[in-house]
């Protein structure tokens, strides 16, 4: 019954993660409707499929993001929100920041 469309803003701010997305730091994204609510795990799969232009192994590792990439959901640590199981709401703000040397 969760048919509403989610609008999410992805900021890949400083740290180099934007290099994997052709240098575009801010993405305004509308996720397609689906029967279950979107969670972060599905969002990652969606990003990998639709936005990630090159070198997926530098962003995603298995189910989750590569260790060393921080995720902020609405300016709070995603660990406090449930990490991969957090269910996305409309107008959510997700930020990915890389803390690594190599990308």
């Amino acid at each position: 019954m969760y048919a509403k469309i989610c609008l999410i803003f992805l900021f890949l701010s400083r740290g180099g993660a934007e290099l994997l997305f052709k240098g575009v730091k801010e993405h305004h994204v509308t996720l397609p409707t689906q029967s279950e609510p979107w969670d972060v795990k599905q969002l990652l799969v969606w990003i990998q499929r639709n936005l990630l232009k090159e070198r997926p192994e530098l962003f995603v590792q298995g189910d989750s993001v590569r260790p060393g990439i921080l995720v902020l959901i609405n300016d709070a640590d995603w660990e406090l929100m449930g990490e991969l199981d957090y269910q996305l709401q409309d107008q959510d703000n997700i930020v990915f920041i890389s803390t690594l040397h190599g990308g």
Partner: protein
Amino acid sequence: MCQVDEDFQGQLEHTEVPSISKKCVKCKEKTAVVVIRAGDTYCRDCFREYFIHKFRAMLGKNRIIFPGEKVLLAVSGGPSSCSMLSQVQEGLSQNAHKKLRFIPGIVYIDEGAAAGRSVDDRKTAMAQMQTLFEATGFPFHLVPLEQVLDLSPSVLVMAPSPSEQPGSAYKAAVDQFIQSKGHWPPRPQDQDQDQDLDQASLPDIQESHTQLLQQLMSSTKTQTAREELLSMLRQHLLVHTARTKGYSKLMLGDCCSRLAVKLLSSIALGRGAQLAQDTGFSDSRYGDIITVRPMRDYSSKEIVFYNHMFKVPSIFIPGLDTMTADKSSIQRLTESFVTKLQADFPSTVSTIYRTSEKLQTAWKGSCAADVCDTCLLCLCALDTTVENASAFQATLISEQLSQTKPPETSSAINPNLNPVQSNPGSALATTTGQCCSGEGECGKKGGGCCSSPRVPETTDMRSLLCYSCRQTVKDMSSVDHLPAYILLEAQRRNRRSQMREQISEFILDEGV
């Protein structure tokens, strides 16, 4: 128990996931926004207080920076060094509780030549950095890495420190310092003069210099050696800038996570003997310039969070190791190992960090400029002068045995020397044969003046380098691409040690 494909079937305990409405552990009122270390949740304001306090505590506890001293901040544009810059600004601002009291300057080293970036990219990056620095109001210097080719060999020589003072007599040391050179509060005309000179336009970069640097980088066969070489050149340039512009301390922005990676990769590279200096809070290997690492207590997560939440400007500039694969170099591999381990075991980095805190240098007293028992490139004490039964000797022997026998070049290792003149004073001019006079360039490639066949330069430098620098140089196809100042200093030291050998029987022993 410890097998490769062990399957734990969920027996590992999971760290308890903090719930959404967790309260801050400090004020216990507001909702937490960030998780630090393993399970400490902080709200926004408490986190800010914690962050700022840690910086002050780090500087205050170590008591190494005197009021009125000129300190050079090395800013690379990355989050850690920009955070350090903002903390310094914060600490010097008028409304700070217990203001910091030193005079900062900023330096940015443009490594675009080594990273293979285009001139336009570099110019854009430089312009961005300039805007960032201008907003702080501190004097700044934008230095392209190409300037490393113009350095003088004195950068490789440890300069005597300005005054020997015991750590406990801090107050006395501060008074002495203030009397000798510092002024606090700083006189307005001193600061204005500095600023006028340094608000210069972006420095121009000579094309030939860039090519020389690129040649140097491409002559190294492995990415590991390239990164080591780059960090060494960068360090030399920083020290040179600090010395020429009159700074007595250098602040680097290495954070805890980076230092943990550096510690492990240093061990892998053979720099175990120099760990304390490479990763400690203060590093006095240059004598007059002391390198300080005030950010070493912050994990990269804390820094990145702070920067994001409090809008600390930083600029990402791709470097030599951006977007490289995991296994491209030892440093990258160590980094990926530590970060992966940290994801599952959040106390990894802090454990490594605590270990590094316990390391101390056993500095063998100040060395006179002539006694060259410091490594040529990294200026740490040589760790290769050990007794015959050491592990180091074992590696040398196995190396010799595993190589094919070279055709009788062993006799060429020591170039033919003229017999020792009875007057040691003129020995310097004549020990290396009739080809040089005074500061001549004997040993330069292609010089047919030496009667011995041309000696491979690598052999000449080996005795001057510590173990890990030897490995780095070994990975270079030709030592001749190294900047002139390194080669000149190597030749000078070789000449001196040869001379010392020859007049050794004339030198009076201390105890006799």
